[in-house]
Each structure stands twice: as structure tokens, then as C-alpha cells.
């Protein structure tokens, strides 16, 4: 048996510590590791980019800006798929998550979604003055409250928690897709989505709750990646996941407030 074959058969080291599962997957010493501080800074950068794009979209209304906003949302969607992948029931991963793309896709996502939410917010503000400040404030209030609950261990994300949130999120996603198809054929929206009565408000509250609980999963991703000494690009991945959920939460809170004010 040659030395090479022997190494293949028995492994390089007999040391149980080196061969233990805990040692696998740790980042090599010459690679930069992620930190919580870095993830926070990247979240700040993404938030800044989103707000800047939203400000442009808010101030320069017109058909061109509508096209840019739609394009921005499409580009953000593609960036999201390229980074988070796409999981579908029974099919599994159609596109696997590629977190190493995050440093490139995260800023594109932030700017694209910024254009979209700027236009959306402007339209909401025209209908109900003061609603945007309320929605932004409530979004940060919910995010800060859940972060406090997560950091103190009040909310503990487990495998069952993940399954529950994932199933509910997919359910909401499928409802929105079905609503789009329904709208394309009939020109009407689903009752639960358009209703400003108790049913519509309860549905919106449920969606806001699920979006908020998704934040807990994002906090856990960042925390665990930091603990395990994940590569530097995971800072962008964590920040992008957090931004995606914050934007979703903002849109849902805005929708809920519009329903409440439209009664």
C-alpha cells in the first residue's frame, strides 16, 4: 500500500480532536472571519442605500420612475434568488443558496427595493398623510422589541419554530401568487387581501406577525455564523436577510395601517 493510499484509507490524522465534527467547517486561519460588528455595519450600509433609492423614487414621480421601480423590484427578486436560493415543497432546492454572492447582490437588492418602496410609500402618503412615518417607526419598534427578546433568550428559535414559520411564510407567498393570477383573470383581489373589515385586518395582523417572527430567524443566522467563525461574506448575507425581512415587514405594516385608516 502506497503512502497516498494509506492516507486515503485511514485519514490524515488519528487525533480525535482534529477528526471531530466540531473541527470540520471552521474557517482556515488565513481567511477573514465575520463579526457581529461587521454585520451591523453592512446592515447600516444597506439601509442607507434603500433610503437613498426610496428618496429618489419618492421625489421624482412619473412614468419613467414607475418603470425604474418595477425594474428595481425585478432585479431585487433575481438578486434574492441568486443569494438565498429557492426552496419549494416536495421539490426541495430548485436553486441552492449561494451566500458567497451576497457582497455583490446585497447592494443591488437594497437599491432595487428602495426604488420600489419609495414609490409605494409616496402613493400611501398621498392617500393618508403621516402614514409612512408611522409605518417606518412601527417597523423599527417591532424589530427592536424582537431583537431584545431574542438576545435575552425570551424567544428561542428551534427546528419546530423554523418549520412553523417556514410553512406560514410559504403559505403567504403562495396566497400572493394565487392573488396575482386571480387578478390577471378577473381584475379583482382576494377578499382577505382587499377587505378593510375585521377579516382583512386579522389577515394583515397575521402576516405582520409572521414577517416579524422571520426577523428572529435572521438574528439567529447572524449570531450562529459569528459563533462558528463563518467567512467574511456572511456579514453581507446576514445583513441582506435582515434587510429583506425588514422591507417585507414595513410593506405589511403599511398595508395594515392603510386598512385601518381606510375604514
Amino acid at each position: 500500500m502506497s503512502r497516498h493510499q494509506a492516507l486515503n484509507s485511514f485519514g490524515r490524522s488519528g487525533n480525535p480532536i482534529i477528526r471531530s465534527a466540531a473541527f470540520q467547517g471552521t474557517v482556515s486561519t488565513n481567511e477573514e472571519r465575520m463579526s457581529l460588528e461587521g454585520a451591523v455595519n453592512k446592515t447600516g450600509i444597506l439601509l442607507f442605500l434603500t433610503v437613498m433609492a426610496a428618496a429618489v423614487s419618492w421625489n421624482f414621480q412619473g412614468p419613467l420612475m414607475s418603470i425604474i421601480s418595477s425594474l428595481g423590484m425585478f432585479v431585487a427578486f433575481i438578486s434574492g434568488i441568486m443569494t438565498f436560493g429557492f426552496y419549494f415543497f416536495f421539490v426541495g432546492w430548485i436553486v441552492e443558496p449561494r451566500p458567497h454572492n451576497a457582497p455583490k447582490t446585497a447592494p443591488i437588492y437594497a437599491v432595487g427595493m428602495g426604488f420600489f418602496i419609495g414609490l409605494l410609500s409616496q402613493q400611501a402618503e398621498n392617500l393618508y398623510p403621516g402614514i409612512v412615518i408611522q409605518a417606518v417607526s412601527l417597523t423599527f419598534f417591532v424589530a427592536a422589541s424582537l431583537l431584545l427578546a431574542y438576545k435575552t433568550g425570551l424567544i428561542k428559535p428551534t427546528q419546530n419554530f423554523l418549520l412553523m414559520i417556514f410553512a406560514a411564510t410559504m403559505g403567504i407567498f403562495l396566497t400572493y401568487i394565487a392573488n396575482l393570477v386571480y387578478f390577471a383573470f378577473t381584475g379583482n383581489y382576494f377578499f382577505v387581501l382587499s377587505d378593510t373589515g375585521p377579516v382583512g385586518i386579522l389577515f394583515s395582523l397575521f402576516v405582520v406577525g409572521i414577517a416579524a417572527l422571520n426577523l428572529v430567524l435572521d438574528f439567529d443566522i447572524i449570531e450562529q455564523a459569528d459563533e462558528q467563525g463563518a467567512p467574511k461574506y456572511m456579514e453581507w448575507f446576514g445583513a441582506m436577510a435582515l434587510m429583506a425581512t425588514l422591507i417585507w415587514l414595513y410593506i405589511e405594516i403599511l398595508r395594515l395601517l392603510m386598512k385601518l385608516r381606510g375604514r
Partner: protein
Amino acid sequence: MALYRDTEIIDEIKRQIAVSYLTIFTGLLGLFSAFIFFYLLRFKASTKQTDRDNRIKWSKFIPYRNETSKGDSEKESQDATFKND
């Protein structure tokens, strides 16, 4: 009639003032919350959160560990090449 219209206008002004107070209050709440959010995000979670057996294994779903271990195994295979083979 004119008195009724004046009362209506006063009511509308009162409502607008109440709305602007609400906006200022929620704006301040939002600023404070954003500050707390970015401040807390820098700290590690408590041991109550991190020292548990039933945590979600994110590395199973997000392949950042495979990426690095693939790099390591490539280095290892280069290392294991012998001149005599």
C-alpha cells in the same frame, strides 16, 4: 349655519393637530427604536439563547461551511501529494 361651519373647521383643525402630534410621537418612537436596534445588534446573545441543544443548525441549509471545508480539502489534497507516487 355659519356657526355650524365654523365648528366643523375647528374640529378639522383639532383633528389635524392630533394627527401631527401622533406623527411626531411615532417619529420619535421610531428614531429611538432604530437606535436601540442597531445598538443591541452589536452584542452577543445571552447564554440562555446560545447554550441549548435544540438550536437550528443553519449550516445544514446555508452552505457556507461546505464552501470553506471544500477549500480546506483542496489544500489537504495538494499537501498529500508525494513525489514518490
